[in-house]
């Protein structure tokens, strides 16, 4: 559980010896972002995006390291991270499929797209396939209503989807 920040009962927080934020990453990050904001605390979103970009999710140890790096308490950074939908506090699949479920997509038969993804992957929204390949998420409006129904697959937008397209899109993932 993401909220547990120390070993408790049978739950163990996974730790590793090698730091998640290496010195090179920190240096590059500082050069790119540090001058942009008047406070280091404002680096929270950029550093969380950076960690998630490298690791796919936000391990607790990485949040701790990032908090020390941007000079805030780990609880503060964890508090920020839990608010945003895009941040994963648990491991997710190698690929993520986000199917839009807002009004325009629902009118244009998003339900059938969801059903096709569910059938193809054999999982419910919010779950990851057993082989850790794909995570399936439902998401509110992704701003491509003109091409409804639409879905984001990792960072690629697929518009005007039909249920028959779904298998092809998912098979194209490695």
């Amino acid at each position, binding site marked *: 559980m993401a909220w547990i920040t120390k070993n408790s009962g049978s739950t163990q927080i996974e730790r590793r010896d090698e730091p998640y934020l290496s010195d090179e990453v920190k240096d590059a990050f500082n050069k790119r972002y540090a001058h*942009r904001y008047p406070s280091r605390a404002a680096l929270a979103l950029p550093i969380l995006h950076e960690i998630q970009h490298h690791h796919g999710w936000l391990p607790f140890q990485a949040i701790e390291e990032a908090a020390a790096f941007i000079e805030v308490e780990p609880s503060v950074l964890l508090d920020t991270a839990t608010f945003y*939908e895009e*941040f994963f506090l648990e491991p997710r699949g190698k690929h993520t499929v986000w199917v839009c479920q807002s009004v*325009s997509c629902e009118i244009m038969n998003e339900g059938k797209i969801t059903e096709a993804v569910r059938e193809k992957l054999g999982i419910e929204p919010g779950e990851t396939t057993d082989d850790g390949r794909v995570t399936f998420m439902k998401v509110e409006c992704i701003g491509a*209503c003109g091409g409804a129904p639409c879905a984001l697959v990792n960072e690629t937008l697929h518009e005007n989807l039909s249920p028959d397209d779904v298998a092809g899109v998912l098979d194209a993932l490695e």
Partner: protein
Amino acid sequence: MPLDAPVLFKRVPTAPWGSANERIYVDYDDYVAQDGYAALDKAVGMSPQDVVAEVKSAELRGRGGAGFPAGMKWSFLPPPDGGPRYLCINADESEPATFKDQILIQFDPHSVIEGIALCMLACELDTAYFYIRGEYHHHREAFERAIAEAYDRGVFGENSRMGKINDRAPNLYLHRGAGAYICGEETALIESLEGKRGWPRIKPPFPAVAGAFARPTIINNVETLANVPHVILHGADAWKARGKGRPDGAPPQVPASFGTKLIGISGPVRRPGVYEEELGVKLTDVIERLGGGPAPGERIKAYFHGGISMGVISQDEAEQGVELDFDIGKKWNNLGLGTACITVIPQRTSMVSMARNCARFYSHESCGQCTHCREGSNWIYKMLSRIEAGDGATRDLDMLLELATSMGSMPGHNICGLSDGTNWAIRTIVNKFFGEFEAAVTSKRTVSLV
């Protein structure tokens, strides 16, 4: 009368002047070749007060939803006191059915950047943050490319053609959000920028006095800023020649709807997409002429005319002559123009499911600070799910309306406008299509009375 030539979409091919398939990224040189940065060069020779006065006299109203006059917002700033001053550009376009700003960001980012530079010049702001929603991936790449071009060509940075603003080199940075609708609210955007949860702040103090990092801050929508170069270059009178003015004899304090507006059309129409039209255009005209009318086999029942938070317009009302301008709320009993991105709801779609979809959205996106927003939206969602499943009772409808009304009709009870949006969306859907809801809760009746 249809718009004779595109204003905001001058460089973005759009029907009827071009095809959306021809859209390409307009880089710095292409932009300059088409009047680009001419307004900035003109404004560099003007005093900041004159630039603000020009925007004020153009009566440019914010394009993000609320329609607050941009010039007036700019004039709220206190005079410079030596400390930093910020501009936040709201590109957190998350309102369901809204997809207008992304076209500008993706294809004509320099028009936005020029507007940003003009605003910084006019309001003496030294640093701008472009807050873009996390889901806009290729848009972000396009905009980052445009920012790099603008730095290379001396729009921003140490060698800026604007010189020092507020005794500092002007800078523009992109800040990526992470998937939270509420961060489109201006003070939530500031909180998110500062690295915290996107929780709206209690106002006052207003951002113009103490915004980002507790310093004076202006927050404007992407489309609002993209209109500024046109206003500065061609003057307020040319801008006011388009759109819908105030009625004859109305005093100048009556707000008017000047200029053009980006209009998105989605749902079952022949040509969904983003178009540009003058404010005051008829809703049915937009759907027929720009959207190509309903898709084959579809009949239109209703519209979300400006994102779901503004409420619905029924087809009956549309045929009576609904016009897309800032007065739409007063005339047709909904919240306002919103983002003017229209979702067409066909006959086959149940309004109960639409209301349920809206309620799910609000209960998911409520930040959780105010009790009646957090609990009310979730309660409404549960009730509507139950009604949709066929397990509703007539008293649920009264309860729905009561809940919606008490969520959003008590000014001062909410920190932000999200629960007002819930109220208007749910209440207008239930009131305008009461027959469908009645039929859904009465097992014996299966036919909609509307």
